């Protein structure tokens, strides 16, 4: 049971807080997200970048003849980092063989299977603060490979969320938190403003509440050919996470303090009904139930979506006019407030781990030091990802101050405020992903009208309770 208390203490909030913010601030201890108001001021930027040129790390030792096998997240913005691996290979004499690439959910399935079968044979694997609790029996504790000096520049809150049972299991790569993206060309259209005011009785402005968000989705759908009000990632953990996010905003909980399912509460039913109404009234694309992060981002990028929940990490992609029709035509705003008076920003950090079965742990640690070094993290942060080193934050803020685009700076301020006030992470239990694999199909069934909201959530709650009971959290 003490283990479960430890999980609870890690539940959220403070976890990744200040992931991107600095200077290092103490993580909030309470397991509930902070209330929406009053808003804390955005944390001050860290004092200074570490020097004129960002530093690399992990290149001070040779590993001639060593070949590291890696399983990394792939696709979109994630690929850029891997181009730097050849520099590490040149400096150390080692080789890196990326033997598996997939999205986060694909890697999760692959790792779970390979670890259980003892066939992984990886030296470095992509990991996530939401996922790593599942793999702990198969991971190498990292505190022996990274000195305190090497770790001091990282967000201490994230490192705390990557620590369980007194051991450090992850080295973070970047963090992210939900933020609303909306089309300025639509919200700024005078005709639309007048029509909206006449129909809804209040001014058209970026959504402050989820109720307004729904109204906006309804209003904009069909206003232009192919335009939908909004969209959400509609499968895997992504849908459960979005549900969880609004559930928290509406004052609900996923699990109670005894790890019993609590998502089938009144707040849960309202949240599920919100998704149901969006789908039934065709305010989202019909194929939303088959979309993941890249799918919804692409819909926004192509100008098919008026307003939606998104990650900061897509920023440079959306701002590239060669790829996106919405480049220069969108803005960001903090998450809306739910019926519980809460703004909730689902958050987490991408990271790297070393499997316990690795035969090249020293070289693997060197590669991770390189990939999470100030230089590489800075390069990746320039794509839009939120960094997890204080020194890189300082550089980004300094860069944004010189930018011609005011959104470059504004987004960082929003990120800091959101992280300081809205942050919450899923429960750090090994069963989180299996839990979402039970919940997501039920949410889909509710959206599609196959199940009533209450019935669907009750069925999911019963299955989750059974699973957690079998896992030893309690007796049914």
């Amino acid at each position, binding site marked *: 049971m003490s283990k479960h208390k430890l999980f609870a203490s890690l539940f959220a909030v403070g976890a990744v807080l200040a992931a991107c913010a600095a200077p290092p601030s103490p993580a909030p201890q309470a397991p509930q997200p902070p209330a929406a108001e009053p808003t804390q001021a955005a944390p001050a930027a860290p004092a200074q970048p570490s020097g004129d040129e960002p530093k690399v790390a992990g290149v001070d030792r040779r590993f001639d003849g060593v070949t590291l096998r890696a399983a990394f997240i792939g696709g979109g913005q994630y690929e850029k980092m891997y181009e730097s691996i050849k520099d590490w290979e040149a400096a150390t004499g080692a080789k890196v063989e990326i033997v598996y690439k997939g999205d986060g959910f694909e890697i999760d399935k692959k790792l779970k299977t390979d670890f259980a079968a003892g066939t992984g044979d990886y030296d470095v694997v992509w990991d996530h603060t939401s996922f790593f609790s599942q793999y702990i029996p198969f991971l190498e504790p990292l505190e022996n490979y990274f000195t305190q000096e090497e770790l001091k520049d990282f967000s201490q809150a994230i490192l705390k969320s990557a620590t369980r049972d007194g051991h450090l299991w992850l080295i973070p790569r970047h963090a992210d938190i939900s933020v609303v993206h909306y089309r300025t060309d639509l919200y700024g259209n005078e005709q639309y403003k007048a029509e909206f005011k006449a129909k809804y009785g209040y001014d058209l402005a970026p959504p402050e509440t989820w109720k307004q968000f729904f109204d906006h989705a309804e209003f904009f759908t069909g206003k232009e050919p192919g335009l939908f009000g909004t969209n959400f990632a509609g499968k895997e953990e992504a849908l459960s996470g979005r549900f969880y996010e609004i559930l928290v905003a509406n004052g609900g909980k996923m699990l109670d303090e005894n790890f019993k399912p609590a998502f089938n509460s009144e707040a849960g039913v309202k949240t599920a009904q919100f998704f149901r109404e969006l789908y039934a009234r065709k305010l989202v694309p019909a194929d939303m139930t088959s979309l993941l992060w890249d799918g919804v981002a692409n819909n926004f990028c192509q100008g098919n979506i008026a307003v939606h929940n998104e990650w900061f990490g897509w920023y440079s992609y959306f701002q590239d006019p060669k790829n996106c029709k919405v480049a220069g035509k969108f803005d960001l705003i903090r998450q809306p407030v739910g019926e519980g008076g809460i703004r909730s920003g689902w958050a987490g950090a991408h990271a790297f781990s070393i499997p316990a079965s690795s035969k090249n742990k020293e070289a693997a640690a060197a590669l991770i030091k390189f990939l999470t070094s100030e230089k590489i993290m800075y390069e990746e942060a320039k794509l839009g990802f939120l960094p997890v080193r204080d020194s890189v934050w300082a550089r980004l803020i300094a860069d944004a101050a010189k930018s011609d685009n005011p959104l470059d700076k504004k987004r960082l301020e929003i990120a800091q405020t959101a992280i300081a006030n809205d942050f919450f992470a899923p429960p750090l239990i090994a069963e989180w992903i299996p839990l979402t694999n039970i919940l997501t199909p039920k949410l889909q069934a509710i959206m599609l009208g196959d*199940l009533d909201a209450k019935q669907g959530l009750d069925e999911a709650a019963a299955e989750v309770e059974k699973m957690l009971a079998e896992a030893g959290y309690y007796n049914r």
Partner: protein
Amino acid sequence: MAQLTQASALERRFTSARRSGASGFIVAMLVPSLVIIAFVVAFPLVYSFYLSFTSYTLLRPIPAWNDFANYRRLLQDPIFGQAFINTLLFMFVTVNAAFLMGLFLSQAVARTIRGQPLLRTLLMVPMMFAPVMVGFQFRWFFNDQVGLVNNILTSLGLLNGSIPWLVDRWLAMFSIGVATVWMNTPVVAIILLAGTLSISPELYEAADVDGANSWQKFRAITYPLLGPFITIALTILSLDVARGFDIVSIMTGGGPAHRTELLWTYVPRVAIQEARFGSGAAMSFVTIIVTVVFTLYLFRQLLKSRIL
């Protein structure tokens, strides 16, 4: 007499020794194969059968015996029942559709005089695609926003709006079926074309003399003589369709909301995504038993129809 008896006894002993030596040699030669088969087939089967009686999960990979709990859970699992029925329907429809189309194509190509080599090559194009690619290709065809099918229907003025091909239960099953049939029809066509071309032209000439029409020639000559080829084609086709995880996985993943769940998407969902490996193993064994029964039934029916 005594000498003869003694000689006979000696001969028997030598023969017996030779026979036992030969048997020993045969066994010795078979041992490596048997060991390999035991290692790669029997052990995994036996071990996974054992796991189906345990609460083994990927998160805590320590088997704990739980009797028939996994099998009892199967009987109470409505999604498993739905996946089971979906699978039977899917197999029945796609195998028959691919067979009939393959048979039609083989007969059409066999009667083509000019350009037959080109047609044969074109027929084989779908076989060159990996199932994963076919899945992606057809997922795009049937995408409700930017998909080829909706765009064509809209361009022809037949559609105002969009059809959610991969969301609606029956449309999604139909879409997956189309992709599966498209990929598997050429195998049938090529095998049956080879069979058709091997039939002696003299038989058809004799039928012409008797005044038989095309349908009568097909019923009396082509179809019966294609029997062995049909058996091979159906066997390969059934196996290919039954291994069609990639296409379903890419196009719908068994979703949304389990609407297109087939056994080969539901088993990995339970075993890997939900990490309940013991339950997944139990499902697999139920599936294996059903498959064996289905195969025996299929071959019995083929025997009855004298195709075998």
